[in-house]
């Protein structure tokens, strides 16, 4: 088999597991922004099997509490979002960067493009970062985001969600995703959430209410565990 045939064979295999696929016409912006040709699997090279590393200097303690980034209290339902980041072998991913961003309690982003006529909260920016700890665990304190309208289809509303960006240990493990809340009534009409066609896989995007993380007299807890795909070069100390 030639390398080209091998590449095409791997592309066929990949085509069956890429979920979400690039093209999902219900999400209209995918139509002109989705690759149409099969992906090529490169030889596993060190550029992809390595990635940036992170240390305590990359984040401040307050970066993980989105409710304290203004001069006063952010408005809305205070929540704690936490979970563990693992690789596909189940190993915790330590000291990796987790970035989050979200709308405020009224469903408005502090972004010039967002023209939804809902109030901005001067005390809520909606962006945070943290590193996972030695057990791969992360915790954010934030405000429960509101749903908001968009123009993908008639009467389109995004379910409440928090955007997540993760690096893992390697370029291969990079992940950008969205965390949803249990029981959201808007799932039935959201083509971004439903862009993941395998329903059982899609459900991984929904956090669970976690009473053990709920802090008395303070905030409700939600758990969102994350599993990163892709391989990483095994660090020397772990081999």
């Amino acid at each position, binding site marked *: 088999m030639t390398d080209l045939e091998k590449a095409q064979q791997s592309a066929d295999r*990949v085509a069956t597991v890429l979920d979400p696929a690039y093209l999902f016409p219900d999400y209209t912006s995918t139509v002109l922004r989705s690759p149409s040709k099969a992906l*090529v699997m490169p030889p596993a090279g060190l550029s992809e099997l390595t990635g940036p590393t992170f240390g305590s200097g990359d984040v401040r303690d307050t970066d993980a509490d989105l409710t304290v980034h203004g001069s006063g209290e952010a408005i809305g339902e205070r929540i704690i979002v936490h979970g563990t980041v693992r690789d596909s072998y189940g190993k915790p991913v330590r000291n990796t960067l987790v970035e989050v961003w979200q709308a405020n309690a009224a469903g408005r982003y502090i972004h010039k493009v967002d023209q939804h006529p809902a109030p901005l909260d001067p005390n809520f920016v909606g962006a945070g970062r943290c590193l996972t700890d030695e057990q791969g665990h992360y915790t954010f304190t934030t405000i429960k985001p509101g749903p908001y309208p968009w123009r993908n289809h008639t009467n389109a509303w995004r379910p409440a969600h928090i955007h997540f960006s993760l690096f893992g240990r390697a370029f291969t493990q990079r992940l950008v995703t969205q965390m949803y809340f249990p029981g959201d009534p808007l799932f039935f009409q959201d083509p971004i959430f439903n862009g993941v066609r395998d329903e059982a896989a899609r459900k991984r995007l929904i956090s669970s209410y976690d009473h053990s993380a709920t802090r008395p007299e303070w905030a409700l807890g939600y758990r969102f565990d994350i599993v990163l795909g*892709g391989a990483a070069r095994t660090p020397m100390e772990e081999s």
Partner: protein
Amino acid sequence: MTEPIPPTFVYEVTDVPASEGVTPWQTVGPYFHYALPYDSGPQVAGSSRPGAFTLHGCVYDAEGRPIPDSLVEIWQADESGRFVDEPGIFEAPAPDGFRGFGRCDTDADGHYAFTTVKPAGVPTENGAEQAPHIAMSVFARGMLRRVVTRVYFDDEASANASDPLLSSVEASRSATLVAASEDGGYRFDVRLQGADETVFLDVAAH
């Protein structure tokens, strides 16, 4: 109050529980700008580092229109083939320093630009030589997951000729992986779809 207009499609929602497995991708969306880009993001290398150049280009959609709301990230070895393993991506590199990672959002013209250096060729996991290249990700609204590609260099003809990836792609398409040298650096455009679509890679399945 008028009756709400139903959506044009309806997805079934059942009580199927989540299965075990990798967390699926979702789009970066249109509102990442206040969270992800940072001032020194485009500085992969300090601008007075010997050999530093500008790697820049535009991201285009299927109709050749520039995409003004995408995010480009790159990761690469240095001139000796070493990958940075110290933290500090959010700090600007020293004037002659090197950080290895870059992040740049595209402007109204779909344009991104990094300051970096040409990496040494790094081998595959199995020790096969590869031509110098930079790993690149592009994220955008309308993309349910990132695309991944590699940036090779047009002034590395002999190394490119024996590169395992470049030689595994049809000749008509491999040119989309090669940046064009110009005054001050290299240009590398990303075309998400169409006749001259960039070759995109699957790196999740390694």
